[in-house]
C-alpha cells in the first residue's frame, strides 16, 4: 500500500532544480495528498458557508462537516468522553492556550513548571511568558549524551510547588520518543497535570489519549498531511470548564450586555471568531488518508527508513549523528565535519533534496549537545529507500565541494 503512495501527492510530479524532489522535511510540514487538496477545492466550490451561525442549508451542512472532523479526530486519538477537541490555528496556539489559561488561574509566583531539554520553542516560550509575567520557575528534565530523557531524575525535580509538566511526544530533532507512560505515571502519582506536545506524534506515532491519560495533547493539521491554518488541542473537559477563554469574540459568548459578558460552555468557549472552516473540513480527509494506510504500517515504514539511513550514514566517517536515542521515530539530525548545516542544505537543494539546517526551533537542545546547528532528516509516508540513496550521494557532493 505504501509502495505507490507517492503517486497520491501531486508535488512529486515537479522537478526541483531539474531533479526529482526528495522531500526529507516532513517534521517541518508534510506534503498534501490529492484527496486533501480536492477536499478544500470541493468545499469552496460547492458547500462554503461560515459555520455555527447561519441556519440556512449551506451553513447547516458546513457546520455538520466541521463537527464531523471533530468527532473523527476524537476517534483518531482515542479520546474518551471526558475529553474534547478545540480547533486552533496551529500547535503553537494550542500550547499558548494551555500555558496562558492554565497560568492565569493556577500559577503563582515561585510555582514550578517542568519542561525538558528537548522541547521545541513552541513548548518553552509560552511558559517563559509565565516566568516573566508571574515569576514562575521553569525546570528542565535533562537528557543523557545519547539524547534520552533522564526520566529517573523526574521525581527529584518535582516539589510541592510543581504545577504542571509539559513535554513533547517525540523530539523534532533527534527523533527520540518520550517514555510518556512512565512520566505521566509519576506525574499522576503526584497529582500534577501533564500537557503533551504531540505535534510530531500525531501522524507518526501510536496515539491513545485515554490510555496515555494526559490532560492536554496539542498538534497541528499541516504536519499530518492536512492543510495549513488549523491546529488542535485535545483537552480534558474539566480543564475546559475551569479555564477562562483564551480569546474573545463572536461564537464564544452566552450573552452580552453593556455591563457584563457570560461565556458559552464547552469547546465553543475557546473557538472565537470565524474558524478555519475549509481547513477543518479538509482535515477530515487527512485522517481518512492516515487511517487508510494504517498507523501501524506508517510507524513501521518510517522506522525502517530511519534505520537504513542511519546505517548508511554511519558508514561515512565524516558524518556525526547528533544523538542515539533508545526509541526513535522517523527523524534524526547530523552534521558533516567542518561543513555548516546551511551549506549542506544549500548544496543538497541543488540535487532536489529538501532538508533543513539550523537549530530547528530547539536552541536549548543544541546548547546541551554543544553544537551550533544540525542538518535534519525527517520521513513521511511518501519516502523510500531511493531518497536515502540520494541523500548519501548528496552528502558526498558536499564533501567533494568542501575538499580544497
Amino acid at each position, binding site marked *: 500500500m505504501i509502495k505507490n503512495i507517492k503517486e497520491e501527492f501531486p508535488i512529486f510530479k515537479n522537478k526541483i532544480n531539474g531533479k526529482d524532489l526528495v522531500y526529507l522535511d516532513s517534521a517541518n510540514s508534510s506534503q498534501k495528498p490529492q484527496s486533501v487538496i480536492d477536499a478544500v477545492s470541493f468545499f469552496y466550490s460547492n458547500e462554503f458557508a461560515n459555520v455555527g451561525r447561519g441556519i440556512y442549508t449551506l451553513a447547516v451542512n458546513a457546520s455538520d462537516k466541521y463537527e464531523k472532523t471533530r468527532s473523527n479526530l476524537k476517534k483518531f486519538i482515542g479520546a474518551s468522553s471526558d475529553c474534547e477537541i478545540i480547533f486552533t490555528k496551529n500547535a503553537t496556539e494550542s500550547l499558548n492556550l494551555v500555558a496562558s489559561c492554565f497560568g492565569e488561574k493556577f500559577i503563582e509566583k515561585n510555582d514550578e513548571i517542568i519542561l525538558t531539554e528537548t522541547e521545541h520553542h513552541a513548548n518553552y516560550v509560552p511558559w517563559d511568558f509565565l516566568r516573566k509575567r508571574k515569576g514562575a520557575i521553569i525546570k528542565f528534565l535533562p537528557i543523557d549524551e545519547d539524547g534520552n530523557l533522564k526520566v529517573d531524575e523526574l521525581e527529584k525535580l518535582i516539589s510541592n510547588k510543581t504545577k504542571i509538566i509539559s513535554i513533547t511526544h517525540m523530539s523534532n530533532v533527534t527523533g527520540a520518543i518520550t517514555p510518556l507512560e512512565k512520566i505521566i505515571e509519576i506525574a499522576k502519582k503526584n497529582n500534577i497535570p501533564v500537557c503533551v506536545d504531540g505535534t510530531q506524534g500525531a501522524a507518526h506515532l501510536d496515539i491513545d489519549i485515554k490510555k496515555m491519560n494526559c490532560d492536554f495533547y496539542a498538534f497541528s493539521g499541516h504536519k499530518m498531511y492536512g492543510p495549513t491554518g488549523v491546529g488542535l488541542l485535545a483537552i480534558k473537559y474539566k480543564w475546559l470548564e475551569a479555564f477562562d477563554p483564551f480569546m474573545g469574540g463572536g461564537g464564544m459568548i452566552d450573552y452580552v450586555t453593556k455591563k457584563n459578558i457570560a461565556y458559552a460552555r464547552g469547546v465553543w468557549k475557546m473557538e472565537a471568531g470565524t474558524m478555519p472552516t475549509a481547513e477543518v473540513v479538509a482535515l477530515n480527509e487527512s485522517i481518512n488518508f492516515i487511517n487508510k494506510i494504517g498507523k501501524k504500517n506508517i510507524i513501521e515504514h518510517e522506522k525502517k527508513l530511519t534505520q537504513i539511513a542511519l546505517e548508511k550514514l554511519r558508514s561515512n566517517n565524516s558524518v556525526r549523528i547528533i544523538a542515539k536515542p533508545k526509541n526513535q521515530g522517523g527523524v534524526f539530525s547530523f552534521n558533516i565535519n*567542518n561543513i555548516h548545516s546551511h551549506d549542506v542544505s544549500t548544496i543538497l537543494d541543488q540535487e532536489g533534496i529538501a532538508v533543513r539546517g539550523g537549530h530547528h526551533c530547539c536552541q536549548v537542545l543544541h546548547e546541551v549537545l554543544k553544537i551550533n546547528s544540525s542538518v535534519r532528516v525527517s520521513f513521511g509516508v511518501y519516502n523510500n529507500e531511493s531518497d536515502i540513496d540520494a541523500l548519501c550521494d548528496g552528502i558526498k557532493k558536499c564533501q567533494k565541494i568542501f575538499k580544497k
Partner: protein
Amino acid sequence: MNIKELYKNIILDHGTSPRNRFRLQNFNHETIGSNPLCGDKVHIFFNVIDDLIDQISFVGEGCAICIASSSVMTEVLQNKSKKEVVAISKYFINVIINKNHTFPNFLEQDNKTKLDSFMSIGEFPTRIKCATLPWIAIESELEKKSK
C-alpha cells in the same frame, strides 16, 4: 547556476580557514551581528585610531559564507577610514543584490576581487543574509557612534 560557483575558492578558503578569527586585546569598538533564523552569529572587534581602522578581528559561528564574509571583511577593512568602510560595505551589498560594479576608486584591485567573489550569492536568496551579516553589523555600529 552551478553550486560550485557559490562555493568558489576564495569563499571556501576563507570559510574553512578564516583569517583574523580571535578576540582583539585592545579595541574601542565591538558589534554583534546575528540571524536568529539560522543561528549565524559573529562578534566583531575593531580599534580605530585617528579615524582609521588599525586592527580588526572577529569570532563567531556560522556557515561557510558567513565566516568567509567576516574573514574577508577583516582583511579588506584594514587601514580604512570610517567613511571608506561605509562605502565598501555599500559596494559589497550592491555587488550581491544588484550586481552593481561601480566600485569606490580607493579600493585596491585584490580587495575588489575578494569582494566580487561573493557575487553569485545573489542567486541564492536565503544565503544573502549570511554574507551581508558582518557588514550590516559594522555599518550600524559606525552609524550609531556618529549620531
